[in-house]
């Protein structure tokens, strides 16, 4: 320290001030958000991680450290793998289904035909209801003996409608997925609608002039232009499919016979019904890790292929 020249020491002091004058504004803009986030999100998350290494029951003043036992138990728990497989199905059918249908409907109205405003208003409406209400509505639709589908089946003689999807372990997940897709098509619909507006008309015309039919136009001109939007939308869909809880819990609580169990409902049941908070936390940790992993990998893959 003593061997430094006067000018060096002077510039050190100056760089300190320069640091603050350069970055002070940025930090002050971002500080409140960061503080709030660390205190109310990251710190509790770290605590949850610690809880997953204990056998805590949620209210004892003492937590016993048990290391990775919960994670080992999780890997050997057939119920965990069942729930996980249901989330995978949810990703594939749920988000891809809603995304595909949303895109399809957006294409149908992208030319703003008569009635466009009504279609757009109604298609997006289910989004406004919230997952719990969507669950209640579809519960009443699927209800045995009293539900909408049952009564329609009774009136029209279409017997298959009188079997409630939620009552049969083989179809319960599908039933909930229909409700979820019903609620989320609107979201993807409006996103793709706007995306389609931005597609370069000249390119499309050029393709048409070159003799491409509608399908080819769509696949070779429209889709690449929507690439960035599609990537983002699928990533959001994947994350949402892993986090799903409210709608499943409202409709079946994971039943019957665990046929609609997902990671979220399993974690809730273990944590609250069975007061195995440590184990429930472990499940949630794994879910979060999967969400991060899947979205990062997926986005990286698309970036490498696309741009």
């Amino acid at each position, binding site marked *: 320290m003593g061997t430094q020249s006067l000018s060096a020491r002077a510039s050190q002091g100056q760089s300190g001030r320069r640091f603050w004058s350069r970055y002070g504004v940025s930090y002050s803009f971002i500080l409140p958000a960061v503080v709030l986030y660390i205190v109310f999100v990251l710190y509790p998350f770290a605590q949850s991680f610690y809880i997953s290494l204990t056998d805590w029951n949620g209210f*004892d*003043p003492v937590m016993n450290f048990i290391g990775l036992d919960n994670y080992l138990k999780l890997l050997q728990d057939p119920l965990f793998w069942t729930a996980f497989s249901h989330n995978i199905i949810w990703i594939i059918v749920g988000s891809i289904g809603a995304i595909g249908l949303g895109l399809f409907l957006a294409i149908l109205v992208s030319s703003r035909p008569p009635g466009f405003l009504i279609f757009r208003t109604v298609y997006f409406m289910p989004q406004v209801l919230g997952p719990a209400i969507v669950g209640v509505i579809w519960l009443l639709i699927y*209800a045995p*003996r009293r539900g909408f589908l049952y009564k329609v089946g009774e009136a029209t003689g279409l017997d298959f409608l009188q*079997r409630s999807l939620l*009552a049969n372990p083989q179809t319960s997940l599908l039933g909930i997925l229909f409700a979820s897709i019903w609620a989320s098509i609107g979201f993807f619909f409006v996103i793709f609608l706007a995306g389609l507006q931005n597609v370069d008309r000249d390119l499309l015309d050029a393709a048409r002039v070159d003799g491409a039919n509608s399908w080819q136009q769509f696949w070779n001109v429209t889709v690449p232009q929507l690439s960035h939007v599609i990537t983002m939308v699928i990533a959001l869909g994947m994350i949402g499919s892993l986090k799903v809880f409210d709608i499943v819990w409202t409709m079946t609580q994971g039943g019957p016979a665990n046929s609609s169990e997902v990671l979220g409902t399993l974690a809730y049941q273990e944590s609250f*019904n069975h*007061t195995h908070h440590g184990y429930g936390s472990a499940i949630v940790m794994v879910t979060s890790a999967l969400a991060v992993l899947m979205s990062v990998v997926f986005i990286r893959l698309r970036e490498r292929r696309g741009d």
Partner: protein
Amino acid sequence: MSTLKRIVSITFVLLVLSLPAYAQDQITLLVWDHFGSVSGGPADMIYEQFMAENPNIVIQREVVDAQQIKDIAPTALASGQGPDLIYMDISDARPLFQGGLLIALDDYAEQYGWYDRFYENGLSWSIVDGQLFGLGMEFEFVGVFINNDIFEREGWAVPTNLEETLAYCQAASAAGYVPFAHGQNPGWQTFFSFTMPLHNTVGVEWVENRVFNDTGSWDDPGVVRAIEVFYRDMRDANCFDPDVNGLDWQTQQDLFFSGEAPLFPTGTWVVGGIIQNMPDANVTMMPFPATVPDGPRIYTTGMGSAWFIASSAANPDAAAQLIDFMFSDFALEQWVEQAGYVPPLPLDADDYELTELQKFVLETLSASVDPDSGVSLGYNIDVLAPRPFNTMLQEGFQAVMADLKSPEEQAADLERIWEENQE
């Protein structure tokens, strides 16, 4: 002394004498309960009467839905800022007491003479390791409700054993009825579709031995047979709606209230609803049909919710006072007549204005706890079982109903979970 001084000193003395009235602190009791649409009214009246009689105690009442209360009670009690007094299910409260969040009530029992007032069988549900941790108010039993009007109209006989039941089911379903208003969504109904046939098949003593004395095993041919009776024999005779796994509690009640289902296998907690929704119908109750030739037909009892005091309560004495008031004559009249509850103490049905059904419930329960009556009732095991066992009842029996699991497998699983969770 001058007149002025005399006046001043008298005023001063009077003031001092009146101080105790001001010095008496106001106590606030925070109470969580789940008294809803039927029992909410009586509850309000009882709270108000208590406050009228005890002006220094203010009751702050929070209504929490029964499903939610078991999720948020543990953290609320652990936070130290939760309720002082809580009314919830015993099976959910037991681990909380064992975890130190609720206090033992033995001292208060002595003080208020509860051991003398209440039936021993009524108190035993909320005793663990010799300590009383709650005072139950809803003594209930489970059987089968009968809409006699339908049986009369159709010219059927009410079934008394398995053979008659299967025949009844075939006839009723052919006539367009749902023979039994049973549902398995979300699944707690399976607690009773298991215990009823179980008691009729293996007898009360066997169940007592398994639950209290740790003898025997759930993985037993008698248990398997009991499961078969309901989940194979009755199912295959069309006793239930084909979508029974998806049929929820609301729809079950609706089926019975609207006359679409002549029989309703459930507990006395629906009596209030029956009175409200089908006041003119001729409804009676019977135990589950006999499952073995000349076998017993047993009502199974349990205690629903009970009163508990938090260990973080600032004034447990006041809380205990309120609990005792809940069983005063004034309160009892409200609970029995308006809400249809049967608290576990000696009640004379003639003291109250009751419907036939209510009288029957009261008299049956009274007889059951009277050692001289010769009536023995069974046990709602779910109140005494560890929670994962109850989850296995729900999920396992949904699977059994759907042919995803055999009765043998379910019996084995039940034994395994029971053993795994014994402390």
